[in-house]
């Protein structure tokens, strides 16, 4: 009989552990300090203005929210699609999904003009608002994934894991669709008005989520000395490759559709050719660092066998993801709205002009604070509850495992 996977909380007493948690905590505190500055002074201290309405905080928040639902994918593959190999990976996946949604929401909520009125967002709901749908979807996600974790950890509830996993999976699709639709339903702006944004956000969530998960898993196993077999890494990195390819496809289709209609030519020209920073971020950040290079790494014959390179590929997907959010969110606003087609327009309110945006340190601080919160939550949670398997060795994880190496070693000893 195959050995069973055991989970345990990490020891978490070392200086390194507290150092790590302290570092995350420090960034979180710095982020909250930035919030204090922003809220005390008003948004005039930020780079945001009446043209760039949503700035860097939204880049981080949207990235984290869609990544959160993507992280849950690993668990969904086990419970919904019945892949046994992914089962031991599920608990951490669900935990990080909650942590990243929490971090993303923190950023989103603290960037509000009146975060003190947050409760109003729950007590007054406009049923027609996509944002309000999201406000309902977020707590639903916490509840569903929370219950999912409970069902996985509580032996008596184990048999319902499939059902709750399915529910959480459907919920996460709704959540990402909702997040994508926040932008996709904005008919006024050339850069947003596309139904393809919602499915594109779902595919992006797959990619970002898996990259974050794989990187965190490798770090966790390495720093806690738990074995992580090649078969797990290989499967996850291959899956990452598929997701990157799918993201590539969606980016291609998105811009192809846009390019086809003459009305969007100037917007496409702005993003793809002469948008300055946005064009650079698109080609170098989003396409180069976020798609082409990591795709090359995960399918490269030798690089793809190196954990270091796989880690770099994951980091690239994450960096490219942030760049893609910047291009979509900020670029979509910087490009002037077409209010009077056929005319060259000018005014004191930025009509007809590319809006400029210089993010402030406070916005960056808030965004990084959100990521720090997610990582701190994860780090702390794996210390107090058994989220991480004791071992993810090939022996446990690979159905075709044959202890080939040991045989060789024996043979060598014999020869000696």
């Amino acid at each position, binding site marked *: 009989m195959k050995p069973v996977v055991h989970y345990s909380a990490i020891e978490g007493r070392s200086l390194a552990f507290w150092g790590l948690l302290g570092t995350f905590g420090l960034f979180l505190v710095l982020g909250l300090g930035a919030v204090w500055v922003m*809220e005390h*002074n*008003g*948004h*005039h201290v*930020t780079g*945001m*203005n*009446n*043209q*760039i*309405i*949503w700035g860097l905080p939204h880049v981080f928040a949207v990235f984290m929210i869609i990544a959160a639902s993507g992280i849950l994918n690993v668990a969904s593959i086990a419970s919904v699609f019945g892949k046994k190999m992914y089962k031991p990976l599920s608990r951490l996946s669900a935990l990080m999904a909650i942590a990243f949604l929490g971090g993303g929401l923190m950023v989103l909520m603290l960037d*509000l*003009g*009146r*975060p003190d*009125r*947050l409760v*109003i*967002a729950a007590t*007054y*709901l*406009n049923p*027609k*608002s*996509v*944002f*309000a749908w999201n*406000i309902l979807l977020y707590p639903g996600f916490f509840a569903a994934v929370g219950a999912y974790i409970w069902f996985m950890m509580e032996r008596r509830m184990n048999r319902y894991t499939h059902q709750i996993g399915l529910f959480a999976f459907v919920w996460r699709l709704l959540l990402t669709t909702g997040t994508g639709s*926040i932008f996709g*339903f*904005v*008919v*006024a*702006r050339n850069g*947003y008005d596309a139904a393809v944004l919602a499915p594109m956000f779902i595919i992006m969530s797959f990619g970002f989520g898996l990259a974050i998960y794989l990187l965190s898993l490798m770090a966790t196993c390495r720093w806690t000395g738990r074995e992580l077999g090649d078969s797990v890494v290989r499967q996850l990195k291959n899956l990452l490759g598929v997701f990157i390819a799918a993201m590539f496809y969606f980016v291609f289709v998105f811009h192809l559709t846009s390019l086809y209609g003459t009305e969007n030519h100037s917007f496409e020209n702005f993003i793809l050719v002469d948008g300055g920073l946005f064009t650079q971020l698109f080609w170098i950040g989003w396409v180069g660092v976020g798609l082409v290079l990591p795709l090359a790494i995960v399918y490269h014959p030798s690089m793809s066998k190196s954990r270091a390179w796989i880690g770099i590929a994951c980091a690239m997907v994450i960096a490219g993801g942030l760049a893609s959010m910047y291009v979509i969110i900020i670029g979509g*606003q910087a490009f002037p*709205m077409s*209010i*009077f087609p*056929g*005319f*060259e*327009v*000018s*005014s*004191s*309110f*930025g*009509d007809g002009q590319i*809006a*400029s945006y210089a993010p402030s340190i406070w916005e960056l601080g808030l965004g990084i604070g959100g990521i720090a919160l997610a990582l701190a939550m994860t780090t702390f949670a794996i210390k107090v509850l058994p989220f991480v398997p004791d071992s993810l060795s090939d022996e446990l994880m690979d159905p075709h495992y044959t202890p080939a190496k040991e045989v060789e070693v024996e043979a060598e000893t014999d020869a000696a």
Partner: protein
Amino acid sequence: MNEQKIDQYRRDFFTKATATAATGVIAPGVMLMQVGQAQARPLDQAASNKNRWGLLIDSNKCADGCSDCVKACESENAWGSGSTDEQKSDAGQKAQWIRTVTLKNKLTSKEHQLPMMCQHCEQPPCVDVCPTGASFKRADGIVLVDKHICIGCRYCMMACPYKARSFIHEDLHDQSPDVPRGKGTVESCTLCVHKIDRGDGTTACAEACTHQAILFGDLNDPNSTISIEMKKHATTQIRADLNLNTGVRYRGI
């Protein structure tokens, strides 16, 4: 500074008005404007959907370089030059309820200008997207922000096809009692709702336009000047493709 100007203006007004009254002459050839289109509604009566307030803006009459409507709005609603606030905000962060937009024909280079403000749509995208319902449309068609429940998410600004809305980026202290506005909330043209409720029957911009380019009135009343004018002349909505049925209509774009 500003108050001095106002006082000066008031003095001028009274002198001239008295002079006119004393001579008792209304110069011939001056067209009489229809007054009292909007009777004052009793204070305790709610705005009703029998009215739909709107503006008809004739960009042919709008004089190049003139910004009287903007100035009037600023002083009436206490933003921009009408208030001592928003000193810390940079140019892109300062509120603008109304602006003049210059349109240049790409083919002929012919330029003309027109004032832009909240278009008071019948189907306002800002109202659709607002998560709390702070963005709302009054029964008489005026689109407003309820700043008591606005959380400052700025989604309405993202959704507005006219860029009509502004966000307040800092603390304010110099508001008009009739026009509350404050940090962290979104605002836009109110169609001088306080003046309408008071029965002024006009807006500050319409009142101040010396070229009669802005006409205020009730789109639901077939006998109002605005309705009559709109029946007589071809008018357009900005971004009519969005099918929002705006309350602000234009001639001569």
